[in-house]
């Protein structure tokens, strides 16, 4: 500023504003106006975010009443954005239940009915044909995934191949949960790793941490025709996820916590899938674990998945 007194009206200390200062002011004002124009898309975006949504607390901090209000609000928003009437519930985990899943690689024929059922059940984005399950066509005689192919399009099954579906393994020590900087994802008492879609900040660290490629990000707002929306929804599972947040397989907890089976299992035509309570000694899954030769993927990582593979022998 010291030099400005020389570039003003010419008289020293006359108190008038120098031309240079005026120019600076004009420059800064123009810059600010241009900036406001540049970030205008943000205002359009913000219109879709209600104050209630912005201020919503973490799932675990919601009282029962808060939660009710949130569920009704989400139902209303689904109606506004997608035109569909849905019911969003929040079934809590049951005492003495720990879910496990097993998959018989000897009978899986690679038809991908499970992936399709997952797509429909969980209200996935239609254009990207998203699903929590990827089915790999593997070379017989090798467990090397590098030889696998998730994009096969020949009739199945091929004689020299076997098929291996992969989805979230609901790890006992889930790295995806450890890395989340905001506790937006956690392991429920019944063993299911969930995401609070209204708390996730979309950093995708969990996606980088998961060794099973089990997480999916909403790169855009999911597109689903109104009449295809599955109206039976859970807060922590298959409700339509907001843009910019993470999602994953939840063993269909809105079904399984109510005594039903996961959609992928119901859809499987070969009976390759076995689901049940690991803590119940009489469950089918326990029978499989005790009588079959069972293995888990990437055991060396020490994550103790609750998803098991086996072969008939």
């Amino acid at each position: 500023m010291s030099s400005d007194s020389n570039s003003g009206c010419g008289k020293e200390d006359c108190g008038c504003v120098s031309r240079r200062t005026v120019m600076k002011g004009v420059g800064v004002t123009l810059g600010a106006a241009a900036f406001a124009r540049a970030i205008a898309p943000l205002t359009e975006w913000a219109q879709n975010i209600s104050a209630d949504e912005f201020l919503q607390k973490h799932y675990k901090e919601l009282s029962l009443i808060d939660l009710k209000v949130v569920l009704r609000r989400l139902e209303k928003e689904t109606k506004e954005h997608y035109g569909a009437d849905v019911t969003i519930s929040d079934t809590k985990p049951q005492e003495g239940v720990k879910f496990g899943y097993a998959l018989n690689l000897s009978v899986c024929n690679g038809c991908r009915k499970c992936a399709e059922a997952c797509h429909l059940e969980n209200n996935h984005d239609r254009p990207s044909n998203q699903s929590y399950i990827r089915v790999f066509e593997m070379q017989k005689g090798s467990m090397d995934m590098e030889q696998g192919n998730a994009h096969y399009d020949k009739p199945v099954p091929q004689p020299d191949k076997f098929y291996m579906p992969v989805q979230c393994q609901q790890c006992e020590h889930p790295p995806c949960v450890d890395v989340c900087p905001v506790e937006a994802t956690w392991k429920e008492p019944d063993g299911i790793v969930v995401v609070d879609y209204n708390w996730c900040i979309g950093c995708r660290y969990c996606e980088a941490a998961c060794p099973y490629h089990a997480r999916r990000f909403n790169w855009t707002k999911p597109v689903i025709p109104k009449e295809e929306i599955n109206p039976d929804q859970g807060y922590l599972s298959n409700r339509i996820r907001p843009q910019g947040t993470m999602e994953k397989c939840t063993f269909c907890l809105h079904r399984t916590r109510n005594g039903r089976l996961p959609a992928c299992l119901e859809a499987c035509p070969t009976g390759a899938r076995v689901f049940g309570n690991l803590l119940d000694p009489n469950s089918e899954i326990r029978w499989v674990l005790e009588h079959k030769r069972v293995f888990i993927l990437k055991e060396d990582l020490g994550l103790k998945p609750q998803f098991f593979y086996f072969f008939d022998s």
Partner: protein
Amino acid sequence: MSDSSEASPSSSRPAFWRNFGRFLGNAALESLDGGKLFYVWMFCLTAVFLVGANAWATQVRDGMALSNMSDHVSWALYIANFTFLVGLAAGGVMMVIPAYLYHDDEMHDIVIIGELLAIAAIIMSLMFVICDLGRPDRFWHLLPPFGRLNFPVSMLSWDVIVLNGYLFINVYICAYLLYMRYLGLTPDPRWYVPFVFLSIVWAISIHTVTAFLYCGLGGRPFWNTALLAPRFLASAFVSGPAFIVLAIQVIRRAVGRHFGDGPIRTLVNIMRITILVNLLMVISEVFTEFYTGGAHTSSARYLYFGLHGHNELVPWIWSSIFLVTTAAVLMLLPSIFTRSWMLNLACVLAFIGIWIEKGMGLIIPGFVPSTLHEIVEYRPSAIEWKITAGIWALGLLIYTLFIKIAAGIVLNRTKMHAIPDEPTAADASPSPVPNS
């Protein structure tokens, strides 16, 4: 800062805080003053920044689908730049150490160039993180007590803490030193020297923690190596000094005063070592990857030679190796100290080479092949380039203004008594800096 004249430490304590607001205003106005070249430079940076801001706003509105990232390559250009910039910020410490630990007086006089670089680089790296978030509106979920910072388990929460901590330490040191100078007082070592030492430790920590972000992931063998953090530091101590040398060269030209021969010599000597250490570590890593072979080497094979016909990164990484090696050779030549074009060239080559290596060359192979061994390649989209350019432009703009403010104060152009409504004799004193 060291040769403060007319020091009267005991006087005007109450004025100390009262005048701080005026100091900021004064500095802001002063920083916008300059010649034609300065205005052209600022105009260009602002224009690029605005393009980036617009691209970002569009990305937030329409979703990250506008980037070319995918569930397979879920971190890319933004996180690559973030990683590199954390290194750049840490590299600023390579001025602080000689200045304060080895009492290099000449370095001490201009150490603020490095400290201000640290501030600008951290601001940029935080912006890259914000641009990478799918839901930037929820950033407050990171802020205790309203949010739930997953501390100490998540490495990202550590990173948030150390980066912001480093930012605050450096902002404090710079603001304190400049403000004291502005007031015409001698800085009290008790009020800044402990923080300077803290910042040295902290500089190491920011880059180590950032390396731990990646090497803590067991499912990604390319990152899961103990060499990652040391490699980060070695390369940071190349890119940081390289940038500072270039900054000194530019400032010398603009300010028209000769300073910094000694500091440049020191910085080049540092780079001579760090650049070789960096190359050595690249070689050891490449050796362990390729000598034994096996499935764990797929990412490295993808990076250096391409995998099953996919070779998007191959030209990048080889150009990086070429640039860094050339820079190393140039730096080792004795004539580097006499030929300033050679010095500048070496710094530019090293800087770009490390930018590639610690950016895309580090992040992308972590995702290719994916954890289930699928190969999905990535090439940044236009929107990603725009946002990246915008943040770089804003960073350079911030840094330019910082340096201008600091120069104004250090060269006694901006000071307490020079405030227009309190005219004193100091106003008339000739400025050592050519104005406009």
